[in-house]
């Protein structure tokens, strides 16, 4: 860890004013400090926003909810409204990290956490994300945890968040405060960039921008929601593959299916074509299999991570079977109450 100036922000204005090319915001710190210890990140100024008022509440936002960026992952998962109306989010949060980390990690920080690609973490290795232009040691390296969708020749790193996958399935949006105090709202696919030839640029946030909230739409009443995470041990491990699903049935047909995937891509992955294929259709194994083929049609893998195709395919079908009633629901699939 390099020396840095520590600034405890007393307002968002103050925090924004301290921002700069060599500054980093710290909220929970669970990923930033991890990276600073290894000098993967070397900010010269660390701006502590963890004590700012008004960022740690969950409030009604029309029919939806506004989740403050400083709401802890544990508190978000435990909130009665989230548990009842957005169970996929609670499930995803609870599948992530550990109890200790969830008590510290913030909503905004979770969205902005960095990849766990081992080559990004190893400063002895080339990494275009850490050191633009240095190359990608992951190419031709150990690839088990790498992404298979949305990658580029310069970067194959996967986004590690569970929470963000559920938010993507819930079609959440992100509120961003610009340094001049104005707020703009981005869809999650607008927030995250794909790596292309600049894997170091991960989001569309500009200098001084601060994520202030995550906005949830109205609850998908009558939906079946689930988060299925496959990992190398039973707990406390990053996803090999995860699937978040929010599925609403209309009579015997799928009214709407919103799926998102973790472990597969540089950002929580959503494929509109897949959702569209499912809408209005009668659930069947064949339909689900075809949708999974579509999801994975453009996947790029090597021998080390090819298994992710198969895992994703199987997990997606299993999740859809439970969500549409083709198979009995197990732990991890929850129903959101019928419309009042």
């Amino acid at each position, binding site marked *: 860890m390099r020396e840095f100036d520590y600034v405890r922000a007393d307002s968002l204005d103050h925090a924004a004013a301290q921002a700069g090319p060599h500054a980093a915001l710290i909220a929970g710190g*669970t990923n930033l400090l*991890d990276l600073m210890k290894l000098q993967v990140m070397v900010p010269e100024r660390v701006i502590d926003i963890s004590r700012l008022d008004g960022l740690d509440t969950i409030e009604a936002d029309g029919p939806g909810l506004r989740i403050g960026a400083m709401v802890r992952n544990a508190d978000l998962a435990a909130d009665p409204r989230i548990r009842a109306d957005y169970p996929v989010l609670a499930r995803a949060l609870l599948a992530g990290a*550990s109890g200790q980390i969830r008590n510290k990690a913030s909503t905004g920080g979770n969205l902005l956490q960095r990849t766990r690609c081992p080559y990004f973490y190893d400063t002895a290795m080339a990494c275009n994300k850490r050191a633009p232009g240095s190359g990608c040691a992951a190419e031709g390296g150990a690839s088990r945890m790498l992404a298979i969708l949305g990658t580029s020749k310069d970067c194959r790193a996967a986004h590690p968040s569970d929470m963000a996958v559920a938010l993507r399935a819930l079609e959440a949006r992100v509120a961003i405060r610009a340094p001049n105090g104005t707020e703009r709202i981005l869809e999650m696919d607008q927030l995250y960039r794909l790596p292309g030839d600049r894997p170091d640029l991960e989001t569309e946030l500009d200098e001084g921008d601060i994520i202030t909230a995550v906005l949830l739409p109205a609850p998908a009443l009558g939906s079946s929601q689930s988060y299925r995470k496959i990992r190398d041990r039973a707990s406390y491990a990053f996803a090999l593959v995860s699937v978040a699903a929010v599925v609403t049935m209309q009579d015997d047909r799928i009214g709407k299916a919103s799926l998102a995937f973790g472990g597969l891509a540089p950002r929580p992955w959503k494929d509109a074509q897949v959702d569209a294929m499912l809408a209005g259709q009668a659930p069947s194994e064949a339909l689900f299999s075809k949708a999974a083929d579509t999801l994975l049609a453009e996947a790029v893998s090597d021998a080390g991570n090819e298994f992710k195709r198969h895992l994703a395919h199987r997990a997606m079908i299993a999740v859809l079977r439970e969500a549409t009633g083709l198979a009995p629901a197990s732990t991890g699939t929850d129903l959101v109450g019928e419309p009042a």
Partner: protein
Amino acid sequence: MPISLKVNGVERTLECDTRVSLLDALRDHLDLPGTKKGCDHGQCGACTILVNGRRINSCLTLAVMHEGDEITTIEGLGGPEDLSPMQRDFVSCDGYQCGYCTPGQIMSATGMLAEARDGMPSHVSESLIGKANLSDAEIAERMSGNLCRCSAYPFIREAIARNTEQSQ
């Protein structure tokens, strides 16, 4: 930077580099080495303490961020002559071997029991709604942020189970 903390009920002040983790502040600056450093990256749980009643990894936070916070470490739970019930149960269940992850396990269990009392669900909860029922599988999932390489897991959970609301 000067920092004031309330550690185990006692006001403590220290002057330290901004880079000092809360863990290193406790171990190296405040003479409280009961909190252990196993990985320094939030991957093992040996450094678990309570901050304002909540369990966290003290390695993944800076001391300077905790001005005025109430910190509870293993030393604050009970000394060798006045062990808390949970500490006693770890001894009688042999819920440890080398002892290095032990303070973290005990602090994590303490925080975890409070979370369960507050109704917080877990990854393995059948339903997200309603009271948390601390079965062995629930305790195991909730304690999975605390690795024990000696692998005393079944005995650690036996000790914790003796301290759940259901068992009392």
